[in-house]
């Protein structure tokens, strides 16, 4: 399972990376905004994308839209982990096709639950 973590703050990327490692996901890579992440997603096959929203350059919501618009990436599971807490933002992300939405500050347990739920759904829809 190869996971890409996108956040402009390296401290948050480290936190997410460590939490994922605890959950047994050791194969992670990092990008600091959507503009850096998109070419990585297009050139290497990732199985999961964890992205922040508010980033300089390309924002997380635009990265999500770009992923959904790209035929090779359109089914990539995307989890947003962001401090953006306005209801219309969450609705916007849902409409853009996000698979999960976590508001910061979050707990290790929340991350664990959301990831499990996303994969359960994917398995259910595949099976």
């Amino acid at each position, binding site marked *: 399972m190869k996971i890409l973590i996108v956040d402009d703050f390296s401290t948050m990327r480290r936190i997410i990376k460590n939490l994922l490692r605890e959950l047994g996901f050791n194969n992670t890579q990092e990008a600091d905004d959507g503009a850096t992440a998109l070419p990585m997603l297009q050139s290497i096959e990732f199985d999961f994308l964890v992205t922040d929203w508010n980033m300089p350059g390309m924002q997380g919501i635009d990265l999500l839209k770009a992923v959904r618009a790209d035929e090779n990436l359109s089914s990539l599971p995307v989890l947003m982990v962001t401090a953006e*807490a306005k209801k219309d933002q969450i609705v916007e992300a849902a409409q853009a096709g996000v698979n999960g939405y976590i*508001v910061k500050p979050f707990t290790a347990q929340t991350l664990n639950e959301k990831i499990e739920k996303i994969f359960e759904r994917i398995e259910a829809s595949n099976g």
Partner: protein
Amino acid sequence: METDGQGYEDYAHQARELISEIESGNFSEADNLIDGLTKLRESALFQDLGKLTRELHDTLSNFQVDVRISELTESEIPDAKERLNHVIELTEKAANRTLNVVEETLPRTEQLDQRATQLKAQWDRFTHRDMKVEEFRGLSKEIDEFLSWTSENATRIHGGLSEVMMAQDFQDLTGQIIRRVITLVQDVEDNLVGLIRVTGQAIKPVEAPTPTAQKSVEAEGPQVPGLEKVEVVTGQDEVDDLLSSLGF
């Protein structure tokens, strides 16, 4: 003030006349001359004052009262103060979270070290066959207890370290808030520079501040308590409720 020679020649001429009138005892004529000198002085003053007034008037006419400045002072600077106070709270909370774990964990590691050192000494005696069977039974029980206790402690220390790691999320959250304040400071600076660089536009009345139109989905960083302007969620539970209402 008038500095050209012409003005002073007038003074000199009238002053010489004044002295000669006083010396001749023509005091009423002297009084007239003093009045004349005063008027001469006043007219120069009035000319300068007039010039200053005109400059002031021109400056005021050229000065455009920027609506943005009142918006900044009325709402955004107080908001920025709230934001920075929130940053203090978040950093304080993170520091305390971390220190609590450290204070709880340090004694654990000290105890671990003490008990291990103690057992090691006994174990060394056993390996050198310097221990009676009775004593060995006791040691074996102690080692058993120590191993369980160590495992339990390792779990707690692991939990503590995870807590310390999660506490570091403040750097992201406060960083986003501080970035917004930096943008505001930049905005204030630009406006002050604009104020100083007086433009050639006519004076305009202060209009009611027009709220800057914001796209509803524009990212704005963490919510600051008391500054939420639109509906926001207050925790992960509300996010989950909202998403499930959307069929998630």
